[in-house]
């Protein structure tokens, strides 16, 4: 569990590009051993989902309205 700092960087990079085979192996073996980085990885995925909800603004909180379809002229 030595390299959490480097692993968190790899987790971030995995959001932006495909990791190489070696990187994936390194990530997987570390995550098997390290609960904290597993939790961190989960949070990074959750942050991406949150940004998706956030980018549709109040769509989430407004149940009475439908998202307009811009193709529907």
């Amino acid at each position, binding site marked *: *569990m*030595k*390299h*959490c*700092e*480097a692993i*968190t*960087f790899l987790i*971030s*990079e995995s*959001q*932006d*590009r495909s990791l190489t085979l070696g990187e994936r192996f390194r990530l997987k073996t570390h995550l098997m051993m390290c609960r*904290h*980085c597993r*939790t*961190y990885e*989960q*949070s*990074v995925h*959750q*942050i*991406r*989902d*949150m*940004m998706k*909800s*956030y*980018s*549709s*603004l*109040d*769509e*989430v*909180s*407004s149940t*009475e*309205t*439908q*998202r*307009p379809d*811009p193709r529907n*002229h």
Partner: protein
Amino acid sequence: MSELLNIDFASYGVKEHLQSYLNEIWPQMRLFAQRQLRQDALAEDLVQEALLSAIQNADKFKGQAAVKTWVFSILRRKIADHFRKSPRTPTDQTVNMTDESEESLDILFDERGRWHPHFQPVEWGNPEATRVQDEFWVTFDLCLNELPEQQCTTFMMREYIGLSTDEIVSELKISINAVNVTLHRARIRLQQCLSIRWFGEQQ
């Protein structure tokens, strides 16, 4: 900078209640565009364009939330288009880059690169349930705003506007490594901020 929205809504047949609503959300749009573009005149132009293309159909939408969602999605597309078309536009975003890349995450990890006990990630429970709460988004906003400016801009370009890292590289004229490092720092800061300010309070 003009404080008045320079669009004659009436001539587009926009109903009055919608006019006043658009006038209400316009400053939010301008602020958002300025943050992304760092060029006030350009930001105003894109906001105007977005509003103009939105109002052609805006009357069809029931409820202000739907209008706001739609108008902002048009604005985001326009900003993304701008970045794609003119990646050479000089911005002052490069200026601060070096300062911030000196920033260290050392405090989060011990000398052997392991999580410092105080900063070890905590389980977030069920974020699905969290996200339907309005207050959560206030906290989320707060954490985004607490990011150093460069991290916020880069992270928003990536996750909100939806640019690829290559596109961010050509827009900010910095190395891909600098983009990756900045995104990494933004993510780890957000994780820490949300853990403390939201998920910490829930337990």
